[in-house]
Structures are given as C-alpha cells and as structure tokens.
C-alpha cells in the first residue's frame, strides 16, 4: 500500500500565492511515501515544502521553473508499476492523448503523469494510463483562466491502483476515485 502524491503547475509566486488552505491541511507529513511533481513550482521554497511532505521527491522541469537542473522527463518504479513524469509543454499538441501516448511508449511506462494544461484528466489507452493532476493552486494557464485547484493521490497496491482525485470546487474539497488494474503480462507496444 504505497501512497504517491502527484501534483504540479503551482506557479508560486508568479500566478498564485500558495496552495489552498484546505489542501494544505490535508497534506501532512508521514502519510505519503512518494511525491511526483510535473513542474512549474516555480521557486525553491516550494521544493522545500514538498520535501517536508516526503523525502522521496521527483520533479521534472516546467518552462517557468527557476531551478534549471530538473530533468525533462523522469521514470520510476513503484511496486509493480512504472511511472513516467514529464511536464508536458514539450508534447505538442498540448494535452493531446495520441501524442502523450507516443511519449508514454517512448518512456515505456504504465502510468504517465504530465501537466501544463492545468486541467485534471485521466485517459487510458492500450499502452497505459495518462494522468494530468491539474494545477494544485488553481493558477491560470496559457489556455484558460478558469482553473479549479486539483491534485492526485495514487494508492498503489500490488497490481492495482486506486487514483484519488482531489478538487477544490466552490471552496469545497471533492474527492473522486478511479480504479484500475494492470494485467500481469505487460500490454506492450
């Protein structure tokens, strides 16, 4: 039972001051084993804050990040799943499923987490699952102003993943969940 927090596109301090208070009250250290961040934090203080949640932190570079040394993409294995991480501004058209699927095949991962569109989405296709945790602060994006703060918590348990989606809609935290299993033989390219 491994808990993985996926979030990104915070754009602190440029477009937002901080995470919403309700999110912050839920994110306490000690519960989460890994944190993966799609990028655009943008400053070191946010990095430090995420580090307090959990020491195992993975970040990829977004176009506004002030830290230049984050990688463009990252892959990690948690339990039976391979996760891929990328900010998403590199993949054109932004947010397009087929292009993201190509990236997923390139990285050879089961779950690809990308951001940049500031909208939560979760797609599946033959090679795997693509999840976009949206923007954790609700910062405006290049595409739209109307953004609900959201992030994703994945509960990885052997061959099954339960994805909990936390969104702040009209000041209330709404939680949804998505459930999927991986078939034991790698559904391949």
């Amino acid at each position, binding site marked *: 039972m491994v808990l993985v927090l996926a979030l990104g596109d915070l754009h602190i301090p440029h477009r937002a001051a901080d995470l919403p208070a309700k999110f912050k*009250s*839920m994110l306490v250290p000690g519960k989460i084993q890994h944190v993966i961040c799609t990028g655009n934090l943008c400053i070191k203080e946010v990095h430090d804050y995420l580090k307090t949640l959990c020491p195992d932190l993975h970040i990829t570079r977004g176009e506004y990040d002030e830290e230049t040394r984050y990688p463009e993409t990252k892959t990690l294995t948690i339990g039976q799943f391979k996760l891929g991480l990328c900010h998403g501004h590199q993949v054109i058209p932004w947010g397009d499923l087929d292009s993201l699927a190509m990236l997923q095949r390139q990285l050879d991962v089961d779950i690809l987490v990308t951001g940049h569109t500031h909208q939560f989405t979760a797609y599946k296709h033959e090679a795997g699952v693509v999840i976009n945790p949206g923007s954790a602060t609700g910062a405006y994006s290049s595409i739209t102003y109307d953004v609900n703060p959201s992030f994703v918590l994945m509960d990885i348990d052997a061959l*099954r993943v339960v994805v909990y989606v*936390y969104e702040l809609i009209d000041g209330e935290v709404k*939680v*949804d*969940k*998505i459930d*999927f299993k991986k078939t034991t033989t790698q559904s391949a390219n």
Partner: protein
Amino acid sequence: MAKNHVPDWLNNSLWSSRSPPPQQSLTPAKTSIDSEDMNRSTNSVVKSSVSTESSVNMPVPVPPPAVIRAEPRPVPPPSPKVEIIGPLNSSSSNCRSDGENGSSDSSTTTSGISSTEDISRQAQLSQELSRKIINLGEVRRLASQGIPDGPGIRAIVWKLLLGYLPTEKALWPTELAKKRPEYKQFKEELLMNPSEIARRLEKSASLENDGTGTDIEGKGVLSRSKVTQEEHPLSLGKSSIWNQFFQDTEIIEQIDRDVKRTHPDLHFFSGDTPSAKSNQDALRIILIIFAKLNPGIRYVQGMNEILAPLFYVFRNDPNEEDPAMAEADTFFCFVELLSGFRDNFCQQLDNSVVGIRSTITRLSQLLKEHDEELWRHLEVTTNVNPQFYAFRWITLLLTQEFNFPDSLLIWDTLLSDPEGPQETLLRICCAMLIIVRRRLLAGDFTSNLKLLQNYPSSNISHLLYVANKLRVKSAG
C-alpha cells in the same frame, strides 16, 4: 500495637541466603542435567528452549543446577516447617550479613525444597490434572508452592488458573476450538491495511465489474466514481479508516520498539534466528490486536514485559507444537491477566482509588503493619518514596526484578493464590522489603534506592514463604 522489635519469625536462619558456594567451573547445563533433577529454573530453559544455545547464554545468576546439587549446603534448610522456632542462630547471622545480598551464584530456586518433595509435587499435580474434572482449589494449592518443570505442566496450570481452560477436561477441545478461530479472525480483520479494506468493501458492494478493476485495454477517458464518506487517504475525519490507520501506525511503531527490546538476554526473544523473529512477531501481533480491541487503554510500555512470560511458557509447551495456537492461547490469557491490572496502566486513573498510586499506598500500609520500624526508616527517615521502586514492581508484576526463571516461579504463586493476584503481589512486594531490611535500615536514601531499584537476586522460596506468612499474620 507498635512493633518495635523485629518479629521472631523474621530472625530465622531461613531468611539468610547461603554464602556463595565455592566456584566450580560451570559446565554448560545441557551436559550435566539428569532427568530426575527437578531444578526448575535452568531445566525448563534447557528442555524447552527453542535453540539450545540459550542455556549457555542464560544470564550468569542462574548457574547450572548440577553444580549446586553437588556441594553440601552450609545452612541446610530441609523444610520450612521444622526451623520456624529457631532463635537467632549465630552461624546464620554471619551468613545473613553477606547473605542477604543473595549471592547471585547460589541456586535461587532450589533451596527449601528437596528434590524428592519436588518430584512428589509434580506427581500430585499430574495426577490432579489427569482427572476428568479438575479441582481448581487443589491445583491452586499445589501451584502456589511452585510448579515443577515437567513438560507442559506449567502451561496447562496457568491456562486453568487464568480461566482459559474450563475445569472439566472433556470440554477442553470445544473451548479451544471456539477460542482459537476467534483469534484468527481478529488477526484477519484488524491487521488489514485500508487499501484492502476498501477493496473488500467494493467487491461486496458492486455487482457489476466495470466500476472496479478496469483493465488497461481500449481507449478513452477513465471513468470516475465518487468517494463517499471521506474514505480517502488524506482524510482527517474521525471515522475514516485511513485516519485510524495512520493513528494506529504510531502505536504500532511503539509496540515494535518495545518488542525488540524485550528480554534481550534470552535467545527465545532476541537475536537473529528465525525462531526469535517469529516469537517477536507473535508478541507484536498480540499487542497490536490488544491495542486495537481496547481503545481505552491501547498500548502502554510494559505490557510487553507482562506478555513475555506467558508467551514463553505457552510456546514451549511440548503438547502444543503449532505456534499459531500458542499465540492464540497467549492472547486470551494475556487479556485475562491484564483485566485485573488494567487500572495500573490507565493514566487517568493514576490518582483514583483504583489507580497505581493507591496501590502503592496500600503497599506502604502493609509494610507499616508488619514492620513499622522499617517503614518508618524508609519513608520518614530516609525519605524513600515508595513510588520510586514499587511502581515498576507492581505494574510489571515483578518481571523486571528477578531473572526470568525466578519470575516464572513468582507468577506461579501470583496466579494461583485464591486471594487474587493484586493482593498477593502486594504481599510479595512487602516480603521483598522485609527480607532486605537489615541493609535498608543501615542505608541512607541513595543506597536504599539503589538497592531497591536493583533488587538483589535472592532465594525465591524464602521470599514466597515470607509473603505467605504475611497473610497469616494480618489475618491473625
């Protein structure tokens, strides 16, 4: 009526331990044990220890019994009843001055009872236990003199005394068949982590399959389902299983730490052997389940010490080869044993009538009744607050004051006394004080505290005899 003088029965040569026997080379116990040797301490360890090296690694205070048997005893006490009337015995007074120190090398368990008596008691016990309907009073009487180390006897007697097994032997299989699966069910229910719980709930709740476990086939947006009732991992709600899980994690960590520290000198519990690890696991699981089933008291440091002897005895019962069964038995007996002593562990009850403070006060009163001079010296003159030493004595049921085999003997008496373990415990504590009275009377605060917090190993049957006498005296 103030007792200004030391009572006569106290001046008995009985209370002095023998001076240390000449140090012979201590051969490892396992080579010199003969089967008739009824010495309780090392025998039980050797016979029943899971790994044979434990006998060699037993702490020094318990030497191999064969060595002790061989030499003549300087002050032989054949049986307590004969020597009661003896007045101050000059030889014994010499012994007493260094003897109260309880020469840790002398056998702490065999004095006072010759081996023939031991054998006869074992025979009596076995006979009693083989009846169809066991006379509990008789078992209590026999057990209070100390349970001999025959295979499995202590385990059965303790189970009877704690009420786990009924007195009618025919009912034993049904009782066990009832209780053991109950424990197994507890394990299954309470040790699941929240993911599994959520999964099982979903399986039972959803009839169709596509809500749960969509495989990665096909293409499109993944369907979302609403999360009901705050059942998500970050939930801070009180009723959320996730929240409870994370709160329990703290307790589980503490239990883990304490279990690892239990009896580091015994190979049964500590070390890297797979058996030691499985024993520690069993202890841990029992404590976790107890903590979950008792939200009022949860886990308090010290419960592991009370659990250890129980598990040791039941696990080493040759009649019961299955460790899972021993675990189940231990759990129920632990619950039973602790039910009498729960109040000691509850912090809110500390200052109440049933709490640990009042128990300590009762001990103090008991001492005052039986030995006012000592009481006055301890509490008034040297200002030794009984809480400093008695707290550990009482809450841990004397497991930390004596070495392991001795504490098993003390527990025999504790559990078998019809007055109940609480009262007996107080009497034994009082006896412990009285036995070292000479040194206490001669000491100041520091030395007294040091003595009482590191109680010298002494002759257990003496101790229990004194404790028994205290009961008679207060009744008379």
